[in-house]
């Protein structure tokens, strides 16, 4: 806690596009009063000062190399609350796609003949390295949800991240269901909170917010098959943001 009684918060980035931190900057512009409630001590995207005395750490990005683990552990050591910010930190997100190819191929493809210079391993969500208290899902995060989470934390409440599917928000917005339009969509198994933004603008849900707690994946798969999708198509849809989770599940099943 700082002298003025405001909790100190810090932002950190790992492997990501930094779009979620950009969304945070955006929400600060909409809600400058947030700065009356918290003190930001570290936020590379937005300021040059760097304080190491913080209680709440927001981490964007997935962990994609061994050497990042120490930095994550140091953050965990300092912060009383660690929050994964966005799909990369929450799920490993699109970064985990590289796990579908031999690592050496990926390294050569990205770094060419210098591939051995750059360290990397399979991308993983932050919670695979350190305990994470909460996650703000999404690619990118939803700015209103970010504010709602900060408010909940300040009140000592569990962040209000929904555990129901995107379809709930989509139906209440009176969107035409993607399936009615003859398209497929992962809305029925994906965690809401985004306001069904993709279907609202005509794109199918790709599960960037991860799955609800008890998704009916068997039935979802049947629906996709009935829509004419091949196993490869279905795999492609499911691996956009949730490669890490799908692989973990397969590993559990053996």
């Amino acid at each position, binding site marked *: 806690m700082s002298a003025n009684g405001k909790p100190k918060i810090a932002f950190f980035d790992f492997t990501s596009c930094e779009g979620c931190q950009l969304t945070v900057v955006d929400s600060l512009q909409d809600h400058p009063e947030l700065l009356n*409630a918290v003190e930001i001590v570290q936020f590379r995207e937005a300021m040059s000062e760097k304080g190491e005395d913080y209680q709440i750490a927001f981490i964007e990005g997935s962990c994609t190399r061994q050497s990042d683990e120490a930095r994550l552990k140091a953050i965990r050591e300092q912060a009383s609350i660690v929050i994964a910010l966005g799909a990369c930190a929450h799920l490993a997100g699109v970064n985990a796609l590289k796990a579908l190819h031999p690592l050496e191929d990926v390294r050569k493809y990205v770094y060419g003949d210098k591939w051995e210079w750059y360290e990397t391993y399979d991308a993983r969500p932050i919670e695979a390295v350190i305990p994470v208290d909460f996650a703000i899902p999404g690619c990118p995060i939803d700015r209103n949800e970010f504010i709602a989470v900060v408010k909940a934390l300040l009140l000592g409440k569990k962040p209000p991240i929904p555990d129901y599917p995107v379809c709930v928000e989509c139906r209440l917005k009176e969107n035409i269901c993607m399936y009615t339009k003859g398209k497929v969509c992962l809305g029925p198994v994906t965690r809401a909170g985004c306001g069904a933004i993709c279907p609202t603008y005509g794109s199918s849900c790709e599960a960037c917010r991860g799955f609800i707690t008890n998704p009916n994946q068997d039935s979802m798969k049947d629906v996709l098959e009935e829509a004419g999708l091949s196993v490869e198509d279905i795999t492609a849809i499911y691996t956009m943001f949730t490669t890490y989770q799908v692989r973990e599940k397969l590993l559990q099943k053996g």
Partner: protein
Amino acid sequence: MSLTILPKPAFQEFVSRMLADYRVAGPTPKNGAYVFEEIHDASELRMDYPTTLLPPKKFLLPTREVLFKYTRQNGGVLQDPPESPPTVILGVHTCDLHAIQLLDTVFSSGQYDLHYMNRRKKTLIISIECLNPCDEHSFCKSMGTLTADEGYDLHLTDLGDRYAVDIGTQAGEQLLAKYANARAADKEDIQQLNAVISAKWPKFPYRLDFDVSELPSILELSMKSPLWQELGDRCLACAACTNVCPTCFCFDVKDEVELNLVDGQRVRQWDSCQLDEFATVAGGHNFRASRALRQRHRFMRKGKYILDAHKHLGCVGCGRCARACIVDITPVGVFNELYRQQEAGS
């Protein structure tokens, strides 16, 4: 009460005049479908719409509403009297009219829900007779909702170039007197009304294989039907069925607070018995953890529980849930299958 006639140009005029004093909502096109929306010009209306995505319920029980405001500073509750503008809902089909009558009963009986009822008292309903089935999913004729003799303030029947207007309440009569140039129906109007009505009934098929009066007992005997597990296996628990339902009224209540952490409001929003967390208590136990039991609960409410409690069936046959279900769980399919299982068993 009595029948009057409103030529279609006079109907447009009627709507335009009401717009000056009322919030007017009615069926309007949206992305190739139809929705009940507040209109600002009579030309936005499509009175011959087949069905809407959400029912007109949303004007009486909004998807989200503030119950009251509070301030955390001295623990004070600031009552925010539920205010809603005087509203006219136009073009309500008779299935939805039956649903609103149920909602009226639910929110006015037992503990009186001031929020719903204040809005309801300020709302006038102008319904319209369906002359053609909206699609293969509606089963209003089986449910006895293909027409209605009460629940509306004014009821329209399209006679081509004019509407026959049936006056249902004194408020409707006053509305018509103040805002419309209607004339009394003559013999020819009544003849045509008769012709239109008798022409419509054969167009609507019965879709249930049994009489609706048997539905509660069919359901009562179906508690252990294997069908529920089959539905549970298919159901995605996406809650589309309950969210588009004109009779569903379950809700959740949440506190919201401003960033000053002092001022806030308690909010009520639609909830669904199909969602995983619906019957979960704070300690974590879920009293309806399986999708099969949640589907059973949904259909039991529709065809039995709500009837027991409120003397109205909880399903009006509008077909919205069937249209919305990605995995083709339909009330007609479910009710007919339960009937078939019982016939086969007896």
